[in-house]
């Protein structure tokens, strides 16, 4: 079995049984951002330290992506014909921030604001040398 490669380094802990998104917390003002960034957007200081974000949170809002995004930049392994719509939303992670993410569910009837969601690492595409890639998403608990 070939190894699953994260879509980009530094996005989430991987491989892991309990993966977590990797964000940054400002040592000066406490502001939390995802992905990690060096300078704090709230106070401007270069005091961000990498932190694992909570794996569970609540759905703050959502929509669905019904058409295949223009490629590039989109790099999904699907084609216009095989594209499967996906959900997109913001998840409120307690004491951290709201994170924009794909959702494993795209049927709006199965989504509601305030419902509990959990991080999932899902298959995404393949690298240029044929390795399967994974990305992050949130799924209803």
């Amino acid at each position: 079995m070939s190894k699953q490669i994260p879509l980009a380094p530094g996005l989430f802990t991987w491989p892991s049984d309990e993966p977590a998104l990797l964000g940054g917390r400002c040592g000066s003002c406490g502001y939390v951002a995802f992905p990690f960034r060096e300078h704090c957007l709230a106070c401007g200081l270069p005091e961000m330290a990498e932190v694992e974000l909570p794996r569970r949170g609540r759905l703050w809002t959502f929509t669905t992506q019904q058409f295949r995004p223009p490629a590039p930049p989109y790099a999904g392994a699907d084609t216009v014909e095989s594209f499967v719509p996906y959900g997109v939303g913001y998840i409120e992670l307690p004491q951290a921030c709201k994170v924009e993410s794909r959702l494993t569910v795209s049927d709006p009837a199965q989504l509601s604001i305030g419902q509990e969601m959990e991080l999932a690492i899902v298959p995404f595409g393949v690298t240029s040398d044929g390795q399967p890639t994974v990305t992050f998403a949130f799924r209803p608990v």
Partner: protein
Amino acid sequence: MDVAIVGVGLHPFGRYEGKSALQMGADAVREALADAGADWRDVQCAFAGSMEITNPEAIVGLLGLTGIPAHAVLNGCATGNTSLTMAAQSIASGEHDLAIAIGLDKHPRGAFAADPSVSGLPGWYGEAGMFLTTHFFGMKITRYMHDHGVSAATLAKVAAKNFRNGAANPRAWRRKPISEAEILGSTVVNHPLTQFMYCSPDEGAAAVLLCRADQAHKYTDKPVYLRASALRSRRLGAFELLSPSLPLESVPSPTVDASRAAYEQAGIGPEDVHVAQLQDTDAGSEVIHMAENGFCKDGEQEVWLAEGRTEIGGLLPVNTDGGLIANGEPVGASGLRQIYEIVTQLRGRAGARQVLGNPKVGYAHLYGAPGTAAVAILST
């Protein structure tokens, strides 16, 4: 120095194969000059905005090489307002007597595609299918509907109104009324927004000729005065496009900030406005912008739309020329199309779509990526 608008011109928005954006811009400028009875050689400076054309100021090569300062302007969806404001400032400062703001654009079909690095975002954000503006509008209206009890039927009413206004506007791109049922039943693009609730990128141009207020009567017996113009970018915590994360605490959008600043500058309140142009990238945006610009409270859109208060003939007609939904969005020109329409309404020249009762105050609002808003207030 007060500033007056004395001429407006439009190259109708749409699709024009074989015609360049600069040619469309030149047509719009010539129309604005003719409207004011002015000549190109009288114009003392120009501000030309475009997203696709990197040198829109090259339009002087089509209009006449008079040696005037000609500037290129680009400020995303607020470009039209920035061109207008810079032209107005060149007059208000006393530097020039007659200046022109021009917008022109020619976008390819389909959703906007670019590398996330142009917005300072990491590459994976685009690879994962997140570097898109359309899904933001779906997410913003989903939250808004949840918080304030706005229904999908109201979104359909907004789009139907704008198509109906477009049908009454001989220069609109989309001139066919579309029923609320057909709008609700069209393909979902980003839940709950359907195909007919979104505007599309297209092509076109607009131009606005401005002069010192004390010279306005040389050009027109119906000058329209620019009372306020305000531009704001997003503050930390505003829910804006292209944000991989947001803080838990929310603050109002830049539209609220720009709107309040413009009302203060003008000494005019939302209750004084007779006709408005609000950025309708999608029907949900128009609904939200009604409240963000102070015209109603959050949630009141439901009764406003049910009672037709934003129709031509209503309490506050909104997007009387069909807005972006019926005209599309050539980004560099869109804000000046709004000014063209407001001036046309305030002069009583809008024909079948004329707002009754002699409107005296008009309001124009722009909003776009990555969280920029601009408001202009005009009056007779």
